[in-house]
């Protein structure tokens, strides 16, 4: 009788420890190691997890994600990761190559930041062409959507820290919204005007959209391709026809095309950050978005002053 009791107790204990609960994940109890592909995702994830998980960039700082070729170190790094946060709709195709090369396909959890984000087409392209704007990370509104998507995935992977992650995500998004509201107030001080702008890259559609502004023309509508002489000619003619007030250029981007446009049309140039260069930091997204919003406010203020 005593033996039977012992066996029952032993079996119950064994089942308690071996059978996973409803909320347990494969990573329960383990400090997560999360990979990221682009700078904004480093900031998003770091702000969500703080020091309760490790955040590692997939490629080292200083490399351009456009057309990046995997290196042996990347393969080594990816093998230590439990999950990778990817944009998934552009910019980080290299991540899939690295995962493939490391034979980690199916073994590593992919967190698609844009999974539930409502996408828009690149300005100036026909919707039938379906050129999706993948720069959802250069906007506060779509970044908030991504932060929640990432947070939801991390909460599932790490249920023990789920509440902590959710609280951090809400605080972070509230801070971002406050920042946007501050700029909106400054924006509201600028009297109404018909502001027309072009950009040398289709990256800023989401950013301008959240301020109720439209990009009239995009000089380089396809990623990584510079305009040909005839395309440049067409754009100059288009800008003249549309009477564009300013052109938004990119920081650290070749300005020769924009200079040509400036010489030919007389429009003013302002720079935006693509938020994919420099060091990976927790503050990177906020710092660079602030640079962009300052640039936007300057463009609007100076355009008004010249009227």
């Amino acid at each position: 009788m005593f033996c039977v009791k012992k066996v029952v107790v032993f079996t119950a204990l064994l089942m308690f420890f071996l059978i996973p609960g409803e909320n347990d994940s494969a990573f329960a109890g383990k400090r997560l190691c999360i990979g990221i592909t682009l700078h904004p995702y480093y900031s998003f994830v770091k702000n969500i997890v703080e020091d309760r998980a490790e955040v590692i960039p997939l490629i080292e700082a200083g490399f351009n994600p456009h057309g990046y070729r995997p290196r042996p170190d990347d393969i080594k790094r990816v093998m230590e990761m439990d999950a990778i946060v990817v944009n998934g709709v552009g910019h980080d195709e290299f991540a899939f190559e690295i995962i493939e090369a490391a034979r980690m396909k199916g073994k590593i959890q992919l967190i698609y930041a844009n999974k539930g984000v409502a996408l828009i087409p690149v300005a100036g392209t026909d919707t039938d062409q379906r050129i999706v704007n993948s720069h959802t990370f250069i906007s506060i509104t779509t970044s908030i959507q991504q932060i929640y998507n990432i947070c939801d995935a991390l909460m599932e992977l790490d249920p023990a820290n789920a509440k902590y992650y959710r609280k951090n995500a809400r605080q972070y998004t509230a801070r971002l919204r406050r920042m946007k509201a501050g700029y909106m107030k400054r924006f509201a001080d600028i009297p109404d005007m018909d502001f027309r702008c072009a950009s040398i890259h289709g990256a800023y559609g989401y950013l301008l959209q959240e301020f109720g502004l439209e990009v009239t023309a995009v000089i380089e509508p396809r990623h990584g391709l510079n305009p040909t002489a005839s395309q440049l000619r067409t754009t100059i003619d288009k800008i003249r026809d549309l009477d564009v007030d300013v052109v938004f250029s990119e920081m650290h981007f070749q300005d020769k095309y924009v200079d040509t446009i400036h010489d030919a049309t007389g429009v003013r140039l302002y720079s935006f950050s693509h938020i994919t260069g420099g060091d990976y930091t927790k503050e990177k997204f906020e710092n660079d978005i602030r640079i962009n919003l300052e640039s936007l406010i300057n463009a609007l203020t100076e355009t008004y002053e010249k009227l």
Partner: protein
Amino acid sequence: MRSKEAIQIVRPAGTRYESMYLCLAMLVVILVSGTAILHRTRSDEQKVLLDYQMSGYGDLNSFEQGTFNDLYAAALEIDAYHDENDEKWPSIRELEDQFIPPFIHDQAWKKRGKLLWTQKVPNVKYTHVAAYMGKTSDPEVSGSFLLVMSHRHRAEGDNKSEAPDFHEDQPFRIWYYNHKSRLYSKRPRHPQRNIPFPDSFIIQNLIMKGWKEVVPYKGEDEIRRLNGEGYD
């Protein structure tokens, strides 16, 4: 006298087979490339929309797209607020105080047709529902929007018949109304300025009142397209 000429016929090596080998090689190249192209081509299958739905990607103008995107992000915030505040829904005032667009009256709000937002929290059994309607002040710039949030909570005696109408697989839906839209086969009764706040948020009722559900083109749709997968 002509010297006797030595005639020697030089035949090209493999004259009979050279053209044949060349043709065969070309055929192999064409076949292999053709198969590879077919194999690698991405499916450009479009997301199928029902009669009462419209695309947030292609059927809205850029101002409406901005409102839709803000509303989409706001729905996530409202959902989180509901979870964390004893299942209460935030009022329009609270959303404004938290700087949440499109409720806040900022410059973007002005440019996008000055939508006037009101809220309704109907008393629906066992399902927490809240609706936020933004009526346009300028129908030339934007149509009106309706955000319907629905949370189903486990409760005894749950009225299951209501569940499909609210589509519990989604915590929220966004609807659009524009009296002049080309999307209607039959124009709705109410002109834009007089559009009433719906009294019921059951899908069939909203369809009958002329509302169209805005379906976003999401990152997961694009990822599926890039991977060459079809839509369910």
